[in-house]
């Protein structure tokens, strides 16, 4: 199961990227899903190679590290209380991001599947609209679990 209930966060009170990444690292370390180096690696990567994507109605970021820092394949979903400034992957301009996907990828065969599903999600206007309309953690969790977990055993 890629999306776990306790890795979906709705209206998370974080103010900037640093707080967001620390929060993610805390949770993921506790679950032993990432190595100790994850915290610094994800901050450094986002700085060097930003992952902000400007969609039609919403900006998202798909933050991740190199595979060596991940012990499993998971997806963290964070809707911050206030939008967080990221840089656009394409031209490095600042953009305000309303939804963050934390891709925990260790380059196993499953990682293709998870990426394909993210790709589908980003490119379907109707899906993005549904995410924008979410009003609670339960709704967000259900939505993500339906989208990402449905073909799992």
């Amino acid at each position, binding site marked *: 199961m890629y999306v776990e209930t306790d890795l979906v966060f709705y209206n998370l009170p974080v103010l900037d990227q640093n707080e967001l990444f620390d929060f993610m690292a805390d949770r993921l370390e506790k679950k032993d899903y990432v190595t100790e180096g994850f915290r610094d690696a994800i901050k450094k*990567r986002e700085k060097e*190679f*930003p*992952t902000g994507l400007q969609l*039609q109605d919403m900006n998202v970021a*798909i933050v991740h590290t190199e595979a060596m820092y991940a012990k499993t394949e998971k997806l963290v979903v964070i809707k911050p209380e206030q939008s967080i400034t990221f840089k656009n992957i*394409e031209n490095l301009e600042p953009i305000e991001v309303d939804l963050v996907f934390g891709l925990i990828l260790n380059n196993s065969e499953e*990682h293709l599947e998870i990426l394909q599903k993210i790709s589908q999600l980003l490119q*379907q206007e109707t899906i993005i609209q549904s995410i924008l309309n979410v009003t609670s953690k339960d709704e967000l969790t259900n939505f993500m679990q339906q989208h990402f977990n449905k073909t799992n055993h």
Partner: protein
Amino acid sequence: MTKRVVIACGAGLATSTMILEKVQGILQEAGIDFSISQSQIYELDSYDGKADLFVTSMKLDETKYKTPIVVGTPFLIGVNEEEAKEKIINILSK
């Protein structure tokens, strides 16, 4: 002749995989004979001049490379996809 395409992003893991899927489909559909590989952006130097096309997740300084570059972000977000597709086919049809 087989066209050599390299898809690159920061980690060579996530965004390049998503772009690769799309580009593969485009080239197959266009009937172009190709080989495709994935890399990290900082590794591109070693492919420069040897590959026929780079598709990257971010804008690079094109003057630094001999190999032509197309930005693959449209394939991630589904905006301006046709334009990027045409660019790719044009470069590889030369």
